[in-house]
């Protein structure tokens, strides 16, 4: 073959090859565009639904602590001969009394005061105020009994139904029978809105309150958020080191025999086990055997750790496998021990891969609900956990509960808002990992 013939042959193939190259490149771009498109679509969906939930109709009312309604004794003071226990008893009896006060009357009076000409009856008036407003007034009073007889400005949430009405989540033209609020209540809400006594304020309480069923408008994410955070910490602290260590062992140290094959297959297999089965396991092991408390983020975190482990191990092993053997030989030849070789040279090269595994594994754990079901974390919990051993809920659980809430018009947005918070948490964690990863990648 002369060189011209050869060149002719090469050239003959060239255009087809370039087309293939272009096509291949196009596939690449198309894939990225598609993937990004999906992200954009999901984000658009979540944001457009969730953002409205971050503002909520809020009353600003002048509340008069009318002594005629708030009929309680003075707050007891501790006398010198009283033991702390006795004092505590007395205080709690007094608080019980304060709770028994019909605070709804106080609220009704405040609303009537703001709109004197309303035709709504007291039930209708109360239907536009969040039901736990009475507890807020109570707490204000307990904290400062001197309020008795005074008039102070108070911010109170509107009820979920009122919020729906004011935001137009419910078709305003529907007949009375299809509305949640009665006609006078709707008119009252509109009027107060027009007068500025109800305003759409930023819903801080989403971040500060815990979940609530009886007062849905005041339901917040604080408990779930902290619970999720604890769980994620447990997962990161356990799954990543354990996963990386076992990946390293299996890939670098373990003799290649039946037993390690078994482990390998085993781990791959665990990745496919439905997450709820991990819940069964967790209930049997952590709750029944190790006697960890129910609904504790620690138990949840442990279950999620088991669930995330295969992901971390598989991904780390894949990364380790891709490290060229010449690198290992270079270190071994210098008299580095196997352990040193792995930890000084091989692992650093795979940090990006490990971080990716962590990101993906933790993200998966963060969004998981099913396994929590069986260890009591799929629950309505009205407290912020102080330690990982306290009962708590988790963000995906919260999403699940809100998503199933019957007051759809209100909770559709709430659910999306919760998703936004969850994504926010996830993105923050990711951002840290990604920052680290890009640093490490640059170094390599």
């Amino acid at each position: 073959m002369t060189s011209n013939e050869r060149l002719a042959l090469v050239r003959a193939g060239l255009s087809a090859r370039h087309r293939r190259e272009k096509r291949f490149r196009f596939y690449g771009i198309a894939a990225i565009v598609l993937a990004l498109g999906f992200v954009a679509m999901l984000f658009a969906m979540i944001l457009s639904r969730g953002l409205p939930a971050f503002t909520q109709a809020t009353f600003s009312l002048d509340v008069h602590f009318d002594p005629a309604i708030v009929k309680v004794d003075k707050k007891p003071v501790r006398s010198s001969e009283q033991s702390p226990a006795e004092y505590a008893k007395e205080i709690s009896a007094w608080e019980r009394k304060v709770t028994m006060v019909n605070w709804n009357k106080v609220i009704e009076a405040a609303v009537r005061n703001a709109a004197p000409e309303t035709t709504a009856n007291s039930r209708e008036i109360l239907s536009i105020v969040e039901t736990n407003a009475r507890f807020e007034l109570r707490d204000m009073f307990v904290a400062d009994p001197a309020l008795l007889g005074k008039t102070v400005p108070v911010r109170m949430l509107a009820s979920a139904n009122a919020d729906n009405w004011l935001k137009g989540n419910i078709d305003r033209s529907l007949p009375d029978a299809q509305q949640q609020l009665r006609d006078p209540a709707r008119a009252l809400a509109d009027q107060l809105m027009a007068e500025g006594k109800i305003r759409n304020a930023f819903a801080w309480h989403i971040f500060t309150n815990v979940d609530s069923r009886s007062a849905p408008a005041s339901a917040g994410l604080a408990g779930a958020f902290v619970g999720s955070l604890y769980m994620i910490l447990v997962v990161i602290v356990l799954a990543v080191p354990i996963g990386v260590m076992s990946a390293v062992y299996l890939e670098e140290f373990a003799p290649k025999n039946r037993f390690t094959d078994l482990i390998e297959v085993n781990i791959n297999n665990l990745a496919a086990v439905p997450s709820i089965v991990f819940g069964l396991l967790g209930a049997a092991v952590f709750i029944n055997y190790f006697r960890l408390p129910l609904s504790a983020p620690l138990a949840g975190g442990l279950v999620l750790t088991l669930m995330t482990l295969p992901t971390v191990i598989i991904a780390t092993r894949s990364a380790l496998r891709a490290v060229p053997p010449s690198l290992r030989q270079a270190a071994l030849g210098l008299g580095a021990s196997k352990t040193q070789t792995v930890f000084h040279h091989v692992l650093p090269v795979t940090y990006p891969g490990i971080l990716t595994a962590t990101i993906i594994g933790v993200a998966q754990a963060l969004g998981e609900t099913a396994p929590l079901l069986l260890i009591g974390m799929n629950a309505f919990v009205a407290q912020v956990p102080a330690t990982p051993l306290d009962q708590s809920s988790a963000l995906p659980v919260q999403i699940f509960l809100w998503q199933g809430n019957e007051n759809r018009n209100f909770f559709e947005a709430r659910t999306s808002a919760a998703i936004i918070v969850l994504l926010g948490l996830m993105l923050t964690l990711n951002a840290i990992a990604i920052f680290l990863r890009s640093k490490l990648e640059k170094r390599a």
Partner: protein
Amino acid sequence: MNTAIIATLLLVLLGLAYQTGWSRSRRLAPAGETKLHSRPVYHGALAAIWTLVPALLIFALWALFGETASRAYLLAQLPPDVLALGSAELESTLRRIRQIESGFGVVGDALPWENQAAQALREFSTLTYAAVIAAAAGTGALALWLANRRISLRLRARNEVERVVSAAMITCSVVAILTTAGIVASLLFEALRFFSFVSPIDFFFGTVWNPGFSTTGQGAAGEYGLLPLLWGTLMVASIAILVALPIGLMTAIYLTQYASQRTRSTVKPVIEILAGIPTIVYGFFALVTVGPFLAGVGDTLGIDIRATSALTAGIVMGIMIIPFISSLSDDIIRQVPRAMRDGSLGLGATQSETIKRVILPAALPGIVGAFLLAVSRAIGETMIVVLAAGNSPFLRLNPGEPVSTVTVTIVNQLTGDTDFASPQSLVAFALGLTLFIMTLILNVAALYIVRRYREQYE
């Protein structure tokens, strides 16, 4: 007991041991004329391990048996008439005394003997607590002294530390085995109970899934054919992979081989977001957006596609697992040495030829790992299928029709209102076990395939 005190004690021991080990070993080899076998850090670490292990052991023993001891002591404090009570009441009395002791959550007034017992218990606890702390500190110190004596020029501290490290690593990998054992154990017993209601033949080869609801005393009402569920699982997972594999792999390839560093560092994390969106969101995305869209497309094409179908679920699930393939493959492809790439490019290969013929084969084992992970995730996923697949456990070939999957059924049967002692609920365990065994077989196959086609570069 105060975990903070224990933690502090352990930390102090640790620091002390490390420091003494380190400095002692360093003093042994002053000006470089003699040489330590291992570097001082290893001596330090070894001393720390030596010191911590006995102390930890004591705490562990206490954690295991302290409860029994204090219980025995408490029982000795109780009046005989209380001891004569039934076990449940005795338990509740003990609990009550403990509550009194901790001064927390006591309902009603405490009786004098209760107070006495609580007082005694409190003293006992304080005493044992102090004793244990002292013992731990003492053994720790002793161990430290011993460890220190062992330090010599020839002490193979590094080897010993590495042995500990590798023991730790083995322990870590055993976690996976234990998990498996735990899962099998927690499934097996109940699955066997299920098979006492339903014959395995009906279960494994049945083509109808209709468990019915559990009515009192009716036992195995309904049919428990596994095949429709299995078929659904297969169909949904395959569709998901058909979506995710090309998109994920091409994304990874483009990002590593073509895209600029900047594009890569923004696109990659953005795509990773897909992995973190709760699956329930995907479910709604499928139900509200993708399903109707597909149905519309089907209409215009004249094919019957239901809004909720295997196709919908599969596509959306595919979207979810894109980052599993793209990000993991990305990292792996990047590790292929550039000499490989240069070798191919230097021969006049186009980028795509280089990628297809050299880089991908070299990165194959890792990519297969990523792929397996994605498949596993697809098989194990529930929420999307619940919402988007139509939950219709019938054997149907058309992916445009609704299906149901094994995992969804597990969740449904386990968390529904069915009697937990009935086959309706127990079938979940049998399903779990079946899925487990099936994926096991798949994985064994995958292992052998990867072994065969592995290309090891230098």
